[in-house]
């Protein structure tokens, strides 16, 4: 026991662990995308993190044991918060699940094996001028097994709590219904367009023209009146099967765009939204550990900072 404590509190051992942790963090920060995240899922990283947590507790036990000053209490709290964060974070990472789904207004999807289905009734973007905080929201009908369907609102930055799951509103935008030929709606497909964040936002997306091998880049510049879209039109740039540019045109309801022998018809415009459903045990403990660490840091460090007289 004493030997273990001596190893865990040895400066060289602690420095080695911190060095390894810094190495992992630097590697994760430098490697792009998923490769960076994968570094933190390796056993080597987990073992290093666990050893560091144990070493923190051992060091505290040896250095601070039995002292009840406010500063020391703060130090205990700070380190306890960090260890709790590591434990709760690991628990959360190993047990949490998430599913994603993209819906167009009127569509329903069952979210994996959760027994929860969501019907997207309406997307309601907040178009109030002169406000920096907007409340884009989606009205959904939540259908849980054995329960009556109920209407709920999910907003950006305001997830919906469904039992032990959370439903988040993600990307959302316009979804033109495009078809081929003069008869709108024939072999129609719903195309989900993404938005830009320029001062005058527009929506864009690439899609295959239904019933044709041609691909199109569609740009939609909405003129809205409340939830309704006024005089919708879809600007399209068409490319043939071989990738050659066929030309550009504008499709409107009842007036398809005809470019290079390919027709793109616009049957109408709806909204779409992406949702994420998560199940996150241990999340509250993760957030609590943050605040415990902050309280500890404030208790142990602030008195000296505020003392004055430098």
């Amino acid at each position: 026991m004493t030997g273990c404590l001596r190893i865990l509190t040895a400066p060289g051992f602690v420095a080695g662990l911190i060095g390894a942790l810094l190495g992992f963090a630097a590697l994760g920060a430098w490697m792009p995308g998923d490769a960076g995240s994968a570094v933190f899922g390796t056993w080597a990283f987990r073992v290093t993190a666990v050893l560091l947590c144990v070493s923190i507790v051992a060091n505290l036990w040896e250095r601070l044991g039995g002292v009840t000053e406010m500063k020391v209490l703060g130090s205990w709290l700070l380190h306890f918060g960090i260890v709790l964060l590591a434990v709760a974070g690991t628990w959360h990472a190993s047990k949490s699940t998430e599913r994603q789904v993209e819906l167009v207004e009127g569509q329903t999807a069952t979210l994996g094996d959760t027994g929860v289905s969501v019907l997207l009734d309406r997307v309601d973007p907040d178009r109030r001028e002169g406000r920096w905080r907007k409340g884009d929201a989606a009205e959904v009908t939540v259908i849980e097994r054995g329960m009556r369907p109920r209407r709920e609102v999910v907003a950006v930055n305001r997830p919906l709590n469904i039992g032990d799951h959370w439903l988040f509103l993600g990307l959302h935008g316009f979804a033109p219904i495009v078809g081929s030929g003069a008869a709108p709606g024939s072999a129609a497909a719903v195309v989900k367009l993404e938005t830009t964040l320029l001062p005058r936002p527009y929506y864009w997306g690439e899609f295959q023209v239904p019933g044709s091998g041609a691909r199109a880049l569609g740009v939609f510049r909405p003129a809205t009146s409340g939830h309704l879209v006024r005089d919708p039109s879809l600007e399209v740039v068409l490319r043939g099967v071989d990738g050659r540019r066929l030309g550009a045109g504008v499709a409107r309801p009842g007036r398809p765009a005809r470019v290079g022998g390919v027709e793109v018809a616009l049957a109408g415009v709806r909204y779409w939204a992406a949702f994420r459903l998560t199940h996150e045990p241990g999340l509250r403990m993760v957030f609590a550990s943050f605040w415990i660490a902050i309280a500890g840091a404030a208790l142990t460090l602030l008195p000296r900072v505020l003392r004055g007289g430098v």
Partner: protein
Amino acid sequence: MAASELAAFWAAVAAYAAAFLAVVFGLVLRRRGAVRAGLGIGAAGLAAQGIALTCRGIGQVAPPFVTYYESVVFGTMLATGVALWLARSREWFRPALAVVLGVSLLLMGSAVFTAREFRPLGPALQSWWLVVHVVFALFAFGGMLVAAGAGVVAIRRRAAPAVRGRIDEVMYRAFALSFIFQLVMTASGAIWAHQAWGRYWGWDPIETASLLTLIVYALALHLRATHDWRGVRLGWLAIAGFLLTAYGIWGVPFVSPSVHLYTSPAYRAEAK
């Protein structure tokens, strides 16, 4: 960008340049009058910077610290304000003020070359957590810039023995404050990320860099408390901490793609 904001911004740049020259001139040639004039001009620049940010905030009806340009102006204003206040009555801190003014000038100069026009915030950014998260990140940056200024003074080893302890104390307190600010920034960012993206931590390069910064602050505080690191060694740590903080806030998107896109080169290219 409104004319009043532009005028105030350039007035701040001009004032900081003049203040920097006056302080350096005064320190090198031992002219206290020049240093005092530099302090006055610096204070005027600080006021102009405050006016520029206020104009921008009112003009765009959104918090003025989201883009690279805005966060640089806000962060350097915090650091310069604290450095001017410290240097006002503490002669030994004035070389550190010169460092803070010089770095602020460089950063503001780099901000000139980025997109300065306002762009609407993406839905996920439209949250009060934005204010808490970014303001505390910039508080930490301001604290570390002051610590780095003091670090440069410590590394030069020219201070009198009596003053060295005070320089150490400034560095330690700046580290302690920045550690608390960085903790609050990380916690608020985690809560906000959970609300907006459905996950509190995703090992995004900026998140990882902020964790790395936090570890370096903790390392400095521990080395000071348990191994009595002072003077030159603490000075180097302060400079490293400052560089890492600046890299975490502004540098990462130049190296790796990040979900924190509002400061990335991709964002600026699109905004143009």
